[in-house]
């Protein structure tokens, strides 16, 4: 149909109007797009650039090598050994099963490892390296390297792992490292990224754990460019890390090793502290375990054996176990009484073998009684009644105060795991913790180191060190960190009258050197090496039976503390033999041998021993020497 001119003109006018309107709107929208572009690309460019960089740049950490640990003479206690593992990359291997088949013809592969590796390769991106075998021998790695052309996608990798060349000797002090667990990560609020490196090892217990920060060092990093699925495209740059600081401990490997041999199969602990700087020369717990097993991942079976052993090889008894100190605690009670000015050393107490306090009868260990005893005799004979009498005069609070002065009741500051504070009870403590009033009987028990009082072998050594020096000696376990000496911990003079200390030291000398002393049989006769000690027997069960007649678990703990040489004290020693019976019969001989070994810095001459013992000691020395040589040879073979 033909349009009228009017219709046509009207229609074209309207279309022009609307066309212009719509065209304008379109161009306006394009303007909006332009503005949006400008906003994103100019105003927010920096933000988006950063996000793009975060997208593409991954930081791969290079694990630092862990600081080594040495003994005081520079002998290695913990080092890093190279370990080899075999990895595979699916995309390079082609037929994975076929390559694994050829690989297993060359090296022993555990079937479960192969299954796991195949599964991992199937589920992860093809460019990811998957471990097929860990901790393979150098020979196996060499075979893989030589046959590389036949093994596409198989790569030998080198890593570092902790190794303890002295095996059992330092297990309880140094502890061990292990792979980072979820629990470890949870401990930190913001875990360092280095902890997320697969197979990265951190200290789990002992010095390894306490000095984790210093030993770890700082990780290096390389920045790599990755694509959207995580494949590494290229390395952008790399910053080398810093190795961890080396530690030098105050321990003496020779002495520690000797003690380990000397304690033998006993469930026992021994601490030797140097009096000048508080250096812990040896701190050994027996039996022990090989920390290398834990580093490699201990098998359930091996772990079960360790856990079920009633001699508790896993426990670090020197610091984490607290025992009633028994008669060794009489040193504290006596000093407290002297300091309080309540007794004179020559004052005597009559011991009929028991004492009535309130309605209860407290026995002396010697049923027949000691008769009249003064201070020195009370320690020499370890008369209990004398101390019951002191306890009544002095009261628990002053005893506890003296105990604390000598280092009891607080955890010694050593970088070991689960260090116990022991227990130095007083009235406040009992009210607070037990909700009961302190009774006089409690004081009586405490005065002879029974009842509530608990001390660890290390605390005992510190107590003796403080008595021997009059200074607030603290244990020092680490001599230097990264070459930096740690301060001496010889301490400052304690506020104890030197005359009173002298009385105690003299009495301890008498214990070991007077014919009637409880430790006379374990004396040293070398003039300038003589020791001064105190025996202790702490009851495990309250009963009156001979130790030989009860099962091992119910026998008394044998304790001995001493310092030596008497004239110019250099070391303090503390021994606990669990369920060892009597302090004088079991603990004292061990303490003497260790003391001599420490003072002579090696096998002591037989002349230091009483003439009657020399034959026996000679045999013992030879036996221990042979044992240590055998162990050393074994360790050499294992390494």
């Amino acid at each position: 149909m033909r349009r009228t001119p009017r219709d046509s003109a009207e229609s074209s006018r309207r279309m022009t109007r609307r066309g212009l309107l719509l065209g304008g709107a379109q161009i306006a929208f394009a303007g909006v797009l332009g503005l949006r572009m400008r906003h994103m690309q100019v105003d927010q460019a920096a933000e988006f650039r950063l996000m793009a960089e975060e997208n593409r740049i991954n930081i791969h950490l290079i694990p630092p090598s862990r600081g080594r640990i040495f003994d005081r003479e520079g002998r290695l206690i913990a080092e890093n050994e190279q370990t080899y593992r075999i990895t595979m990359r699916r995309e390079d291997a082609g037929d994975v099963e076929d390559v694994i088949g050829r690989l297993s013809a060359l090296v022993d592969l555990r079937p479960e490892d192969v299954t796991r590796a195949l599964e991992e390769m199937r589920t992860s991106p093809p460019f990811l390296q998957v471990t097929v075998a860990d901790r393979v021998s150098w020979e196996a790695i060499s075979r893989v390297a030589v046959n590389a052309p036949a093994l596409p996608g198989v790569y030998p990798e080198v890593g570092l792992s902790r190794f303890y060349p002295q095996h059992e000797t330092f297990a309880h002090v140094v502890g061990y490292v292990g792979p980072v667990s979820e629990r470890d990560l949870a401990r930190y609020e913001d875990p360092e990224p280095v902890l997320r490196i697969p197979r990265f090892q951190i200290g789990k217990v002992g010095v390894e754990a306490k000095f984790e920060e210093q030993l770890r060092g700082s990780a290096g990093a390389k920045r790599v460019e990755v694509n959207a699925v995580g494949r590494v495209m290229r390395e952008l740059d790399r910053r080398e890390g810093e190795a961890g600081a080396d530690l030098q401990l105050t321990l003496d490997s020779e002495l520690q090793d000797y003690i380990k041999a000397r304690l033998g199969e006993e469930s026992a602990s021994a601490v030797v502290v140097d009096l000048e700087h508080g250096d812990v020369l040896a701190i050994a717990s027996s039996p022990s375990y090989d920390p290398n097993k834990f580093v490699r991942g201990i098998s359930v079976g091996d772990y079960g054996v360790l856990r079920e052993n009633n001699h508790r090889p896993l426990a670090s008894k020197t610091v984490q176990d607290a025992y009633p100190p028994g008669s060794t605690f009489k040193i504290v009670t006596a000093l407290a009484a002297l300091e309080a000015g309540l007794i004179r050393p020559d004052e005597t107490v009559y011991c009929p073998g028991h004492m009535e306090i309130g309605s209860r009868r407290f026995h002396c260990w010697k049923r027949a009684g000691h008769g009249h005893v003064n201070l020195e005799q009370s320690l020499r004979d370890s008369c209990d009644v004398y101390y019951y009498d002191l306890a009544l005069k002095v009261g628990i609070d002053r005893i506890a105060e003296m105990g604390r002065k000598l280092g009891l009741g607080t955890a010694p500051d050593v970088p070991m795991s689960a260090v116990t504070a022991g227990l130095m009870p007083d009235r406040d403590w009992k009210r607070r913790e037990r909700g009961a009033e302190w009774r006089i009987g409690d004081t009586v028990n405490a005065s002879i180191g029974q009842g509530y009082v608990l001390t660890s072998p290390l605390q005992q050594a510190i107590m003796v060190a403080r008595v021997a020096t009059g200074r607030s000696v603290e244990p020092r376990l680490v001599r230097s960190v990264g070459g930096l000496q740690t301060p001496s911990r010889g301490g400052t003079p304690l506020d104890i009258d030197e005359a009173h200390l002298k009385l105690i030291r003299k009495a301890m000398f008498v214990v070991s050197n007077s014919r009637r002393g409880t430790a006379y049989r374990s004396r040293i006769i070398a003039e300038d090496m003589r020791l001064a000690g105190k025996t202790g027997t702490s009851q495990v069960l309250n009963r009156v039976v001979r130790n030989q007649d009860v099962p091992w678990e119910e026998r008394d703990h044998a304790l001995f503390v001493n310092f030596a040489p008497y004239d110019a004290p250099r070391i303090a020693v503390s021994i606990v033999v669990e369920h060892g019976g009597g302090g004088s019969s079991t603990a004292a001989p061990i303490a003497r041998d260790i003391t001599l070994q420490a003072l002579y810095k090696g096998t002591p001459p037989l002349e230091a021993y009483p003439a009657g013992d020399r034959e026996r000691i000679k045999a013992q020395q030879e036996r221990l020497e042979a044992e240590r040589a055998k162990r050393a040879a074994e360790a050499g073979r294992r390494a």
Partner: protein
Amino acid sequence: MSYLEYTVKTVPSGWRKVLYLNWPLIILLTAVACVGFLMLYSVAGGALQPWAEPQMERFGLGLAAMFITAMVPIWLWRNLSALIYLVALALLVAVELFGAVGMGAQRWIDLGFMRLQPSELMKIALVMALAAYYDWLPMKRVSRPIWVIAPLILILAPTFLTLTQPDLGTAILLMTAGGLMMFLAGVHWAYFAVVIAAAGGGIYTVFLSRGTPWQLLKDYQFRRIDTFLDPSTDPLGAGYHITQAKIAMGSGGWTGRGFMQGTQSRLNFLPEKHTDFIFNTLAEEFGFVGGFSLLVLYVLVLLFCIVAALQNRDRYSSLLILGIGLTFFLFFAVNMSMVMGLAPVVGVPLPLVSYGGSAMLVLMIAFGLVQSAHIHRPR
């Protein structure tokens, strides 16, 4: 017949028509396509394969199709409009019944030598049909309800068919382009007010249908809308695309990171980098300068169309050119809004730049129509 209106003498004929082509427009289109080749070359990591070269071939084919279309007198096209529309509609129905399913949507018919996407064809066919309809319809009837319903059916039939494929992007384009064609043709304002109100209600209904058995959109379409509204809710899932696209865009800065230096696209963080999100690669590698330049090219194409339409005294030609310009605008506006995070990701390619055969060919034919209208305009 309206071609009788023309004074045939003044309309060029034979090979002289070539001289009367709108050459600046051809140059503009080629420039846009070249931007596409460059980016396809870049996203392939500096290689002509697999995208840049086929795209060039298609553009060549498209240019040829454009010339052929341009040579045919516009009145012939007008007379064919209804037929073309019906064919396109039939193909849409066919694709619904026999089409191949790809990427979760039923979109094309495999013709052996190429995949025909009828929805692309429909974009032009609808514009042609509406232009022809309003050319035929006397002005005074344009706003009468009965004459409004007819074009509505023309629009809604293909819209519904593409929506069920499902191809939300094309459905939106068809509906918007059709509606605006009606607006251009002079339909009364009041209708549009009603439609806008109804659309509001419709969107509300669509959201209301979510989770019910008569759900109007597929789940993934709902999710796209969700993540568009708040990409941070799903930064590694569906929101990942939007987030990565925006990062690519923004990190370009003023002048970009350099040709083939865009980390987002080169390292595959950018999704669909050769099709829907190709603009982000451009913006990343050539920055604001590059992105804005392409926008300017598009606006110039648009301006050429508007000017050509308003100069043309033939009603069909004017409407057709405006409609094609509008379709072109909707393509790039929706795509750019989408990749800049202004609109949900609906799968609309960037015209002449995104890799894709049907869209390129159909657009070039459409510009052939513009050229034809230009050559055969009444003088």
